């Protein structure tokens, strides 16, 4: 029956023989089909008609499609995770790595599959990794935080290792999920650094307050006078802190420092105080020192000088000379006639010593009859320097 078309061109006397062959072939196929059906019916595992078989086939295909869709979903799920996900054998050998895990791996090109997972962590972190593996093997959760990559700018990982249960309910493999916590780690380090810096500043401030208190007591004529003087100085430091905090403790504008110190010493009479000079920013140490100096001058002016009488005036002026040093002048006028103080108190010692000592430069404090004059000149660079 097959491939007989070529014979159609032969003589018509062959036609009868050809018809006979076809008849025989068909009969043979029928018998084969019958035999096959009988054989199928004798085997209990394969019953049913052709239609039933086709229905079963359709169901199998649908199940297959569903399974493929589910697998694809799981793959997309794992690919969607930003965590590095690795499947390990119970002995810690890497068997599978997620997309993010391959991207995070610091040995690009190198095969991670088949390597010892714990060995990828360095130094003491390797021990932490081994401990986490041991915990996961017993069904518990192992967890540690460790860096990877360059020691200068490492990436930090929060790693959780747990068991993948087999059908028998026992750990069959291990799952290691590493989440990138670099930003959180950096923030924590920054926080720790700030706390340390804060502690340092507080200690320095306490030492400064201690020195102010001791110096105040040394030169006090009475407990009441000491109390008043100390409170005034403490307030001057407090105001200086306010100005510094506005500048994030890095710098403060000189005009703001002068205004901050003078405010408590000025009454409602307008025009008694004038400050002028270019915008200059000063470092915290200079701000604290200068604030205390100006406070002493203002206190003195309020007791004996220009601020003790309604007609008195105070002018604070400053300028940069050669762009490299700050010149600042305190000039009183219009007050009662001035005489130099009989004894050198805290204020004048502070003015003469602290700025010159701390920043270099020079200071002069004079008491001509028309009003006290202080002139200072100090290198700007030193007065703009960082930490107090």
């Amino acid at each position, binding site marked *: 029956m097959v491939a007989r078309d070529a014979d159609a061109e032969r003589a018509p006397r062959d036609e009868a023989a050809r018809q006979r062959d076809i008849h025989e072939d068909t009969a043979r196929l029928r018998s084969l089909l019958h035999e096959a059906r009988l054989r199928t019916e004798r085997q209990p595992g394969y019953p049913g008609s052709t239609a039933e078989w086709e229905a079963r086939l359709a169901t199998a295909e649908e199940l297959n499609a569903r399974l493929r869709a589910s697998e694809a979903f799981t793959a997309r799920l794992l690919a969607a995770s930003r965590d590095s996900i690795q499947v390990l054998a119970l002995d810690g050998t890497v068997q599978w790595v997620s997309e993010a895990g391959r991207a995070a791996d610091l040995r690009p090109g190198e095969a991670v599959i088949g390597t010892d997972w714990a060995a990828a962590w360095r130094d003491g972190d390797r021990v932490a990794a081994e401990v986490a593996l041991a915990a996961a093997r017993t069904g518990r959760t192992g967890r540690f935080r460790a860096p990877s990559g360059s020691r200068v700018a490492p990436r930090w990982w929060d790693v959780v290792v747990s068991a993948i249960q087999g059908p028998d309910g026992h750990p069959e493999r291990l799952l290691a999920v590493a989440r990138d916590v670099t930003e959180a780690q950096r923030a924590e380090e920054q926080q720790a650094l700030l706390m340390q810096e804060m502690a340092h500043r507080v200690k320095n401030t306490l030492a*400064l307050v201690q020195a102010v208190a001791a110096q105040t007591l040394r030169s006090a004529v009475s407990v009441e006078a000491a109390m008043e003087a100390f409170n005034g100085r403490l307030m001057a430091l407090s105001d200086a802190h306010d100005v510094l905090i506005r500048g994030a403790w890095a710098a403060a504008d000189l005009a703001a420092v002068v205004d901050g110190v003078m405010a408590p010493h000025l009454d409602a009479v307008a025009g008694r105080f004038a400050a002028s000079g270019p915008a200059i920013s000063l470092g915290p140490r200079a701000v604290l020192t200068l604030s205390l100096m100006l406070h002493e001058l203002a206190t003195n002016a309020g007791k004996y000088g220009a601020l003790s009488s309604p007609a008195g005036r105070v002018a604070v002026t400053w300028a940069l000379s050669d762009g490299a040093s700050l010149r600042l002048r305190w000039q009183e006028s219009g007050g009662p006639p001035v005489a130099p103080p009989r004894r050198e108190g805290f204020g004048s010692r502070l003015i003469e010593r602290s700025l010159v000592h701390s920043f270099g430069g020079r200071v002069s404090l004079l008491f001509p009859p028309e009003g006290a004059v202080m002139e200072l000149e100090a290198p700007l660079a030193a007065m703009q320097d960082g930490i107090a």
Partner: protein
Amino acid sequence: MTSDPDRTPRDAHEEGHSPACDAAPVVLLVEDDGLLLMEAADTLAEAGFTVLEAPHADQALKVLESRPDVELLMTDVDMPLGSMNGFALARLVSRRWPRIPVLVVSGMGSPGPHDMPPGARFIPKPYAPSALVRTLHDTVRRAA
């Protein structure tokens, strides 16, 4: 008015606490903050020390080179004006002048493992003045 490292605070003489001059141990105070230095100098002068002052490490070295009678160095750590901080100064002094005991004073918690030279003492700021005086006397006595 300049900061004179050789100046002895006048209180020591005015208030009569200073013992005979040649018996007063000479201490070199290195501190960049003028107010803290003033107070420390007054405290030590009252306790019978002769106080020399320096605002930074470089000035301190000049004083040490010109004054062989310095018996003790007390230094702050952060001193922006000089070429080195107090720890570096302490290490340098303990090498160049091994007979001079060194005290380091700072508001920063505690020194790092290699900051201090062997035998030097660290005093955290702020300190109780009486404890400082006791420590200095002990140190001078031990070095003698």
